[in-house]
């Protein structure tokens, strides 16, 4: 049976149309100046169509009952951002050469304005990020949030965990003091005991069969270019999937369909 098409409703039935001859939009210099922000956003949106995606991500609904446990993921991301910003400032003064690394950190600690403070934020921020990522994973595990349809997001999350641990392993060497040097030697040796890829992996990390001058710059490149780039990319995908599939509801919350959608019980008289 063909359906009759309804006429489209007017977009805003309450506002009356302008009188003929009157111009649409703001008038006068002040009027245009007041609209400058809107105009600029419109200009960008006309060329990028970003507003739809933004609206989709920001105004999606979050289920009832989500509690403070659900902020752990974004807190981890925030710790990563803090690491990125403090890391950029440290990179301005750090020199990844075996002869100069220790001195450049000393310079950061003793001479640079707020140098030790930013260095400390970066150092302890790594602990905070590791704790947060484990708590976030624990929440996901115990709430069963990795189940259908969010399996892929769990896999990406585990990859992010591994990368976070790689970050802290590669960053540990950079101050180049006794502790970091010897701990890294043992760590690289441990990698070398792995089956098949182990020896190649530790040779790659050391940039050769022995711990040498290029080892430090290799760790530096891994720590500030390779892994952070991968983390940022995977984090973006992780967030996209969260927005796409929605935040999980706590497992003990029962879905109650709204009153008007509930099926009526029809009783038929015999």
């Amino acid at each position, binding site marked *: 049976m063909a359906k009759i098409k309804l006429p489209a409703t007017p977009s805003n039935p309450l506002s009356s149309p302008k009188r003929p001859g009157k111009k649409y939009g703001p008038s006068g210099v002040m009027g245009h100046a007041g609209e400058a922000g809107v105009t600029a956003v419109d200009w960008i949106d006309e060329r990028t169509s970003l507003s739809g995606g933004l609206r989709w991500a920001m*105004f999606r*609904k979050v*289920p*009832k009952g989500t509690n403070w446990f*659900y*902020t*752990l993921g*974004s*807190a981890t991301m*925030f*710790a990563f951002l803090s690491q990125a910003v403090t890391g950029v400032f440290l990179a301005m003064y750090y020199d990844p050469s075996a002869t100069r690394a220790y001195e450049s*950190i000393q310079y950061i*600690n003793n001479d640079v304005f707020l140098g030790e*403070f*930013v260095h*400390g*934020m*970066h150092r302890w921020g*790594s*602990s*905070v990020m*590791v*704790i947060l990522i484990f708590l976030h994973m*624990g929440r996901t595990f*115990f*709430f*069963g949030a*990795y*189940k*259908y*349809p969010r399996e892929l997001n*769990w*896999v990406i999350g*585990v*990859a992010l965990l591994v990368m976070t*641990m790689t970050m802290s392993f590669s960053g540990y060497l950079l*101050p*180049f*003091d*006794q*502790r970091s*040097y*010897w*701990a890294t*030697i*043992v*760590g690289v040796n*441990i990698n*070398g*005991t*792995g*089956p098949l890829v*182990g020896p190649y992996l530790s040779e790659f990390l050391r940039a050769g069969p022995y711990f040498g001058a290029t080892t430090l710059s290799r760790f530096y490149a891994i720590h500030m270019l390779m892994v952070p780039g991968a983390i940022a990319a995977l984090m973006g995908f992780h967030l996209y999937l969260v927005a796409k599939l*929605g935040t*999980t509801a706590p*497992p003990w919350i*029962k*879905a*109650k369909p*709204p009153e008007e959608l509930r099926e009526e019980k029809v009783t038929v008289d015999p």
Partner: protein
Amino acid sequence: MNKEQKEQYLRDYGTLKSQGKPFFPYAVAKDSAMAIVVMAVIIAMSIVLGAELGPKADPTSTTYTPRPEWYFFFLFELLRVIKPPALVPLATIGVPTICLILLFLLPFYDRGPERRPERRPIATTAGIFVVCAIGYLTYLGAAAGPPTQIDIPVPANVSSQGPEAVANFEAGSQVVAQSGCAACHKFGENGNSGPGPSLTKIGARLPAQAIQRTLLNPSAPMPSFSALSEESPTQFAQMVGFLAALK
């Protein structure tokens, strides 16, 4: 989950979602509050704990203790728990790799529809067990100090060789202690029992030559002492002599 259960889940989730609140501003407000807490904690830690720098890295030095960052303690402690040398690769790479693969594939073997922790006894028990195991191993790692002192009575066969042998033995004991060997090896009552084998009676098991070879070309994860043998052959010889005298 079969198809019916999947559809049921999506239906229930859709209902819950439609009854929820928009992400902005409600969830964003909570996330921002949490971000402020995180920032405050990081700043407080930086101010209170600082960013002290140890002495400069020195490949030839004999005073070091290989100690990872605290959140790697549980991996490091695994080496102590799994002792037999034949199983070391299992501890270093085997167990972590298996755990990691299990972690990656979790949603593919745990496919039940139930999400409430109290109705998933196996998953919840396993999760609590892993949390406790990691916590316990981290505690062990934190408690296992890096001893830098070794008190071992001079063996009779050394003291019978005269005061020079005794002095050499004690100098060697000091080199071994400062080199952090006790972080991974046991010397009588001193040191940690693992990841390395006990060296209390190493002289009875290996001749001095073999000990020297092992020090220069150790099997991982032990670091090599070839730098020490080049920089300071006397100290290296004292180290070998001390170890060979442990009978």
